[in-house]
């Protein structure tokens, strides 16, 4: 029903566009000069159609359920029901009206279900009538108003601006919403687990919290030595470090090769090929690390008499590094290419060779941008989940041996949130606390990276 109404309103919008433009053409044919192009008159009318429809739809969506509920439940007032019981009655009524109620049907509920249905149909038909009449009234008003010298261009431009603003606002509000949901859960978590224990504790063993029977009272003392985040922070930075040890040299050198040495033809093919690496889903990298690189390292280690865990930090970090190569290579290629040719010419004309020019002129000039690309790579490494979950294990060892397995913040969040969750439980909230710390770390890195890149831009543009 709503879909049909919506389609009809869209059709009305097109019709008003058509009429608006037609009127403009008619005015034009009388040799009067219009203040705007004819299609602006059309858009103007279409907006007059869209705005009332949008307002009425939103009002209905906000108020209809509340009003219907009030009316249905008015039968039960003065009978001494509690709020919770009233809510239950209302849910039963709705379920019955949908034909999904399986319990015992009392005559009371049957009566309210009928009332509910009739109220809904009244609401629906009045919505149709009100929307359509409002649209027709507003379009007719606007249609009469437009003349050769009426202003249509400004309202249309303003409307477009408002639409675009709303779109960007939606993105921003989502971010804010996510941050807030993290913040509240994190605060709850730190009410049970002291911040000090979380930040400086060296023992991370959330499984201990899994055994708690949720009917038992919450006893903070049983969580001591459970949520010490040092091992997983250390693991996160350690694996990120291994990844950057792979990604920075290879990425940077391939970026320099592409920007300075590769001929146009090589570049044309090599650059997209490297960028394909960025398009591989991380889960594929994950099983590459877990099933190919991990066992290979283990065998290699065993043949050299080293003890290598099948799920080693080295395997996860190394494969993560390969994943990050295209980011660094592509971004540094871009910044190196944007160093002005005049600087290269100046250096060559002084008799500098290609490598001297790169080392002494181009690299220093591009350095801020390169640092920016590296920082973006680091924040990706820290946020990467799948590879670690699959290839580096889930035991949070506090170790600096790349051949042992360690775990990261992201992997632990996965461990905690897989399966059935009890919200309001410290072990679930621990995931939010971890998410919050991860968010703060990557946020700081991104801010620094963007600052650095911006500073670089100011220099050449």
């Amino acid at each position, binding site marked *: 029903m709503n879909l049909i109404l919506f389609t009809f309103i869209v059709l009305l919008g097109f019709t008003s566009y058509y009429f608006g433009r037609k009127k403009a053409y008619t005015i034009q044919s009388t040799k009067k000069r219009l203040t705007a192009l004819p299609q602006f008159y059309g858009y103007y009318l279409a907006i007059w159609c869209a705005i009332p429809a949008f307002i009425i739809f939103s009002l209905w969506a906000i108020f209809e359920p509340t009003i219907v509920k009030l009316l249905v439940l008015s039968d039960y007032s003065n009978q001494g029901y509690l709020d919770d019981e009233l809510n239950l009655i209302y849910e039963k009524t709705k379920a019955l009206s949908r034909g999904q109620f399986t319990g015992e049907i009392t005559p009371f509920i049957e009566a309210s279900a009928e009332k509910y249905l009739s109220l809904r149909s009244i609401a629906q038909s009045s919505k149709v009538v009100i929307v359509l009449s409002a649209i027709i009234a507003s379009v007719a008003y606007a249609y009469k108003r437009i003349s050769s010298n009426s202003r249509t261009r400004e309202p249309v431009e303003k409307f477009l601006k408002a639409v675009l603003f709303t779109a960007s606002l939606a993105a921003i509000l989502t971010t804010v919403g996510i941050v807030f949901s993290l913040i509240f859960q994190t605060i709850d978590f730190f009410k049970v687990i002291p911040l000090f224990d979380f930040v400086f504790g060296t023992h991370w063993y959330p499984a201990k919290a899994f055994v708690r029977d949720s009917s038992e009272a919450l006893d903070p003392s049983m969580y001591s030595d459970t949520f010490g985040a040092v091992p997983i922070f250390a693991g996160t930075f350690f694996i990120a470090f291994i990844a950057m040890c792979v990604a920075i040299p290879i990425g940077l050198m391939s970026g320099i090769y592409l920007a300075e040495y590769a001929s146009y033809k090589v570049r044309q093919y090599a650059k997209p090929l490297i960028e394909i690496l960025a398009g591989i889903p991380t889960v594929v990298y994950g099983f590459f690390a877990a099933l190919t690189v991990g066992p290979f390292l283990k065998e290699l280690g065993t043949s050299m008499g080293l003890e290598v865990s099948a799920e080693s930090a080295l395997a996860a970090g190394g494969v993560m590094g390969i994943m990050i190569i295209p980011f660094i290579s592509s971004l540094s290629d871009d910044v190196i290419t944007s160093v002005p040719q005049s600087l290269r*010419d100046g250096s060559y004309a*002084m*008799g500098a060779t290609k490598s001297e020019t790169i080392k002494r002129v181009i690299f220093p000039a591009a350095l801020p941008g390169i640092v920016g690309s590296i920082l973006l790579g680091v924040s990706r490494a820290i946020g990467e989940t799948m590879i670690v979950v699959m290839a580096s294990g889930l035991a949070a060892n506090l170790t600096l041996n790349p051949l042992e397995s360690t775990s990261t913040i992201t992997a632990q969040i996965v461990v905690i949130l897989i399966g059935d969750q009890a919200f309001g439980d410290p072990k679930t909230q621990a995931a939010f606390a971890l998410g919050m710390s991860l968010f703060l770390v990557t946020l700081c890195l991104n801010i620094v990276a963007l600052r650095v890149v911006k500073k670089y831009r100011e220099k050449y543009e």
Partner: protein
Amino acid sequence: MIKIKAKDVDVFYGKKQALFNISLDIEENQVTALIGPSGCGKSTFLRCLNRMNDVIDICSVKGEILINDFNINDKSCDVVRLREKIGMVFQKPNPFPKTLYENVSYGPTIHGIAQSKQEMDEIVETSLKKAALWEEVKDRLHEPGTGLSGGQQQRLCIARAISVRPEVILMDEPCSALDPIATAQIEELIDELKKEHTIIIVTHSMAQAARVSQNTGFFHLGQLIEHGSTDKIFKNPDNKKTQDYITGRFG
């Protein structure tokens, strides 16, 4: 005395020929101006003299260019040494985004000219003095070269070029991005520099060519139409095209 002798130089960009059979002698310790309308090949010719066209992939150069009787287009020519001998100043000032000191010491460093810090200081000071920039910048040698005004930047580029004591300095429209006062300073400088260096300058300004040069070559559509002493070219050219260009009838 002849410093540079170009014989039958052809330049191609891909399949398109940009210069046709250029033969030109350049006198030592004089200023030679190359004039002509835009796209006539004068800058291309200039860039042949220090093999800067090597940088452009699709560019190929044929013919002989003898500098001190040595053909620089020969395979045995070491481009690094050649460019040490032949300095270049570009149309747009292009100081490196480094300090003034590092800008001037760049050439001596890569060619290993200075043996000590003291020697390097001296080279930087003399180069800046010769480029008439020393007095203005001596207190801020360790500030970035990009912070100078356009005219100062161009003089910094000249200081950078002369820091390795080149025998020849190529100038590709060195004043086209500068105001008249900065232009006058550079022109004065060119006059001074010709005592120690051979200078070849590409310019769009007829007046500038007449003011600074002793010899002039006129290029048109990739051909060297006429060359000779500046006096003769400007007062009594042999070719009608030269006459037309100089009097401003085309170009």
